[in-house]
């Protein structure tokens, strides 16, 4: 028996690819020429004309090949692809700008000193953001201690206890995820800072961050716990375990890596949160290890303060702070993705 080779007659042939490339290049050249000879100018003109030419040229190619319907199909296809590209453009711009502008403010020194003896406008070789990094770590840690239990308990209520408040709580968690961060800040201000502590501190800021973090953790954990197969739970109960032991010894361990993902996403959500810190943390310039006493600096506060100081040195400090902050967020985010792609066992 002769063997037959599988074919994919529907896949694009080299000739098709060549034609697509030609259309692409033609549109690019055409938009360049039009910008050169007409009064239209600037990046917007290039991009806008290119979009129009590329979509229309693809449409015309489709028309020639298969007629009117194919023209509309390919026109839309090209347009949609270009729009998706527009979505990615700002991310590219943001990442390249932060790296290009921030690296000049990065040196070993900034990880060793704080700003207690310096102003943001000082030369870049003095002062640093040690206080900001330690501050952010402390703020986030305290917020974690408060929000992780509440977030996971909320998820457990929805997936395990399934009491009569399940629906309203799902709704409220969703509503809570839409609470503006400034409102969370005002709330802590009105409910805790003014009546009780009467002083700025890291803890006040952590309380506000807790409010912002709970819904992220609750919703992600809920998704994760729902993926735990029911037979695991039934097996636990069938072996004579109580629900409490089943959840603690079977369900939660099985969901461990997913719950870690939830926690990490929660951290990523609040690490760069700025507005409530402006209201509550007081933003010190010195390393302050005590969240309950004295103002506490943080990366967002440092960035904000430097940015508002306005001098070139200060702006570079802000970019450097953003570079550090975004590096942390990206590391957390990558960790969350790596953890969540591992199978829930």
């Amino acid at each position: 028996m002769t063997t037959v080779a599988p074919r994919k007659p529907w896949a694009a042939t080299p000739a098709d690819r060549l034609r697509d490339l030609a259309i692409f290049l033609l549109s690019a050249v055409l938009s360049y020429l039009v910008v050169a000879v007409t009064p239209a100018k600037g990046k917007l003109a290039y991009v806008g004309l290119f979009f129009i030419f590329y979509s229309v040229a693809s449409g015309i190619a489709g028309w020639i090949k298969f007629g009117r319907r194919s023209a509309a199909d390919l026109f839309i296809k090209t347009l949609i692809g270009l729009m998706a590209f527009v979505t990615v453009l700002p991310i590219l711009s943001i990442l390249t700008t932060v790296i290009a502008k921030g690296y000049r403010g990065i040196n070993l020194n900034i990880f060793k000193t704080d700003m207690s003896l310096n102003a943001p406008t000082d030369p870049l070789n003095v002062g640093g953001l040690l206080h900001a990094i330690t501050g952010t770590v402390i703020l986030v840690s305290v917020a974690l201690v408060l929000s992780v239990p509440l977030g996971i308990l909320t998820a457990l209520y929805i997936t395990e206890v399934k009491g009569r408040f399940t629906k309203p709580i799902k709704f409220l968690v969703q509503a809570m995820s839409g609470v503006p961060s400034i409102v969370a800040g005002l709330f802590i201000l009105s409910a805790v800072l003014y009546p009780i502590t009467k002083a700025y501190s890291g803890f006040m800021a952590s309380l506000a961050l807790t409010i912002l973090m709970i819904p992220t953790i609750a919703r992600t954990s809920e998704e994760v716990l729902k993926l735990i197969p029911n037979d695991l739970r039934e097996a636990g109960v069938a072996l004579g375990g109580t629900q409490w032991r089943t959840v603690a010894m079977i369900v939660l361990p099985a969901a461990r890596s997913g719950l870690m993902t939830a926690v990490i996403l929660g951290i990523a959500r609040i690490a760069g949160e700025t507005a409530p810190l402006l209201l509550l943390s007081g933003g010190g310039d010195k390393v302050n290890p005590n969240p309950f006493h004295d103002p506490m600096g943080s990366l967002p506060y440092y960035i904000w303060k430097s940015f508002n100081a306005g001098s070139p040195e200060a702006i570079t400090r802000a970019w450097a702070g953003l570079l550090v902050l975004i590096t942390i967020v990206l590391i957390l985010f990558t960790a969350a993705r790596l953890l969540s792609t591992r199978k829930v066992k």
Partner: protein
Amino acid sequence: MTSSLSEVANAHVTKAPSIRAAGTGLEARGVHAWFTKHHALADVSLDFAPGTVTALIGPSGCGKSTFIRTLNRMHEFIPGAAMAGEVLLDGKDVYAPGVDVTKIRLQIGMVFQKPNPFPSMTIGENVLSGLKLAQVKVDNKDDLLEECLERAGLWKEVKDRLGAHGGSLSGGQQQRLCIARALAVRPQVLLMDEPCSALDPGSTLRIEETIRHLSDTMTIVIVTHNMQQAARVSDSTAFFLSDGGPGQMIEFAPTSEIFSRPKDKRTEDYVTGRFG
């Protein structure tokens, strides 16, 4: 069992497949199909004569669905799918470079196992949806609507509620609606993949009637697990089987012969119920 099936098969006049000019109708030549590395179908050649009903029978997983989906190029939607061979429609390979797939699918309609009317459209809109999708203009939509629903055997039941949603019909009615929808674009060939397996016996009979009527004007290929059904509606029958490897066509003959004196032992085992 055998005798009763062959009686059923002989009860209707089988159309002679010879009354046609060469190069018309649908023809598969040496068709293979793969899912990624899995070779699901090997070397199937079948000639579907115009105006006849061909039944494809065989145990589950032997590649019947895969085969009919290669005929109207629906196979290629599965990621990793590949094929080999040719499918000729009026003598021209539907897989040739430069062929507009959407036109092929207009000429080779399809009805699926589960009725799938468009939920956002009314009954009337459902029937005419193919025209809208294909941007085909017709002069008199109302006539076409009535004609298609009539041919699908649904007109009497729905003529007073064409504005109702497709989902408000029973399963059998929905399936006939899907047939009417496929008819509206006037295909030459209609592929049906177990069109009755989700329906009750009453609806099944109605659809079989519809198939007999339609076969006067078009070529029909029907996959079925119901041997009685194959015997009742088809002129020719092809038996598919997979012996662990890729599915193959074992025997293709007039339906009365498949059920009364099959040439292959495996076909006999299958139609007499000693297998599968």
